[in-house]
């Protein structure tokens, strides 16, 4: 391997850091430079909304790799530095301090950024936060120290709900606004939305469905959220959890194809040969579901990182992973195998009120499993989806039947 070559990775999070370490694993001997504007040693992002909010000191943050690991593997980390310019013709990136670094391979692992909707009065909002990095968590914690009591969360998706659960743990008053008529509006089974609605209400969260925030008023030291239905709610802090967008500054400078994310092929290669994109920032084709998608998950970032490293080092392998995801709220552990995008029916298996699972099908073919406090269902689901299996639905709902790939497969499908 040519050790004079340099691979520059923009973004040092789940995607970028894993590309760096995977490159070494694949035998890349050249230089590796990882640049991230976040000054912290790269850390696990999912706990931001789960446990980090409830821990006081930095030792609670889980690093992706120990600091020494970067030195040992010869990975140069440039933290607290932003790539401001990229030039395809000279194959170089420029940092905010003016440093120019030349690359042979460039990896975009720039992730996504929280959307801040143009709500009337938002520019004057007090204690307004998003939830994407450690600075956000520290900002929220500092505001809580200053006496904030009532928090409004805009958006009833995973991040909004996990944040609500964490803040309730800290004893705050929490109200969640969701524009659609159910929580987790993207999920195709409203039983889950209803279950979570009850869970949060039982834990003291006020939930306002079909409520889109139209204005934030700040008058006489009082902050009020007004919904388009005309209702008014006081709050001291506002956390926006209404989704993310992919920043296009860099991909535009590189004139890369873009479609909701940076378009990549099965090797996570962009429309420019020596430029790759991983994780939240790319749109890729998923063969299992026969669709182009953009995913926001650790699994996707990590698995794609391995594909990029293989491709750069010349042992190309196509990205073909089954997506998985998880969410923790109070004592509920939700584990998701696969996607529901092409599912047309679902059934529920209920061990008890707290332990159950939703099985999504396209016809009889299993496509996704949402397991609630039920790791077994998740694991069996992962295996069956990977096999493209058709399941015996009667057995699936029959609690006398064990949850195992063998019992659930339609008999004549075995060994086919």
């Amino acid at each position, binding site marked *: 391997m040519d050790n004079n070559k340099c691979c520059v990775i923009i973004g040092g999070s789940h995607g970028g850091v894993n590309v760096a370490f995977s490159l070494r694993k694949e035998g890349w001997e050249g230089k590796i430079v990882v640049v991230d504007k976040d000054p912290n040693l790269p850390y*696990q992002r*999912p*706990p931001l909304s*789960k446990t980090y909010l409830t821990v006081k000191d930095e030792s609670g943050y*889980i*690093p*992706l*790799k*120990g600091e*020494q*690991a970067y030195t*040992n*593997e010869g990975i140069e980390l440039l933290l607290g530095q932003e790539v401001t310019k990229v030039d395809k013709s000279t194959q170089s990136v420029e940092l905010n301090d003016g440093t120019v670094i030349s690359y042979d391979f460039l990896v975009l692992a720039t992730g996504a950024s929280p959307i801040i909707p143009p709500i009337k009065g938002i520019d004057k909002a007090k204690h307004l936060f998003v939830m994407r990095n450690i600075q956000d968590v520290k900002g929220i914690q500092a505001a809580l120290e200053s006496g904030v009591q009532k928090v409004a969360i805009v958006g009833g998706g995973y991040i909004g709900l996990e944040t609500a659960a964490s803040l309730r743990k800290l004893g705050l008053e929490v109200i969640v606004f969701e524009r659609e008529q159910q929580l987790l509006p993207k999920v195709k089974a409203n039983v889950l939305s209803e279950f979570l609605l009850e869970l949060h209400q039982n834990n003291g969260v006020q939930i306002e469905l079909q409520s889109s925030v139209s204005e934030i008023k700040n008058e006489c030291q009082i902050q009020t959220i007004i919904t388009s239905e005309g209702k008014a709610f006081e709050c001291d802090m506002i956390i926006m959890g209404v989704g993310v967008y992919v920043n296009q500054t860099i991909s535009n400078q590189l004139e890369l194809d873009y479609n909701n994310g940076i378009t990549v092929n099965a090797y996570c290669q962009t429309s420019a040969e020596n430029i790759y994109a991983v994780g939240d920032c790319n749109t890729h084709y998923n063969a299992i579901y026969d669709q182009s998608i953009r995913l926001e998950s*650790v*699994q996707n970032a*990590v698995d794609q990182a391995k594909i990029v490293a293989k491709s750069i080092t010349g042992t190309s392998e196509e990205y073909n992973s089954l997506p998985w995801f*998880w969410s*923790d709220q109070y004592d509920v*552990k939700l*584990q998701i195998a696969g996607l529901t995008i092409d599912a047309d029916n679902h059934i529920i298996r209920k061990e008890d009120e707290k332990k159950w699972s939703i099985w999504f099908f396209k016809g009889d073919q299993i496509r996704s499993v949402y397991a609630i406090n039920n*790791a*077994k269902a*998740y*694991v069996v689901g*992962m*295996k069956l989806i990977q096999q493209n299996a058709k399941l015996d639905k009667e057995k699936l709902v029959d609690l006398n039947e064990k949850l195992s790939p063998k019992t659930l497969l339609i008999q004549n499908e075995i060994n086919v």
Partner: protein
Amino acid sequence: MAKITFITKDQESIVVEGTAGSVMELAVQNNVKGIDGDCGGVCSCATCHVQVDPASADKLGEASEIEQDMLELDDDANEYSRLCCQLQVTEALDGVVLNVVK
């Protein structure tokens, strides 16, 4: 303080000392190859799979139901398999030897 030995797939032996947190975090901090901890230690990814050396197996308690179920994701799991994010570093673990599976 507990002294924990990891033996990686390429037979490298790494001895580390820890006082708190999970064994997965300790392994990641010390760059033990094969322990990724992709889910941050919430028993959702099975990328922290180890097999306890039978001679030191009695130092560990029982795996929880969810840990046992998650282990089934890995075809290489056996009776000594554990997800080390579920093992807390305590004095009781002192001297334990863990074989990294991946």
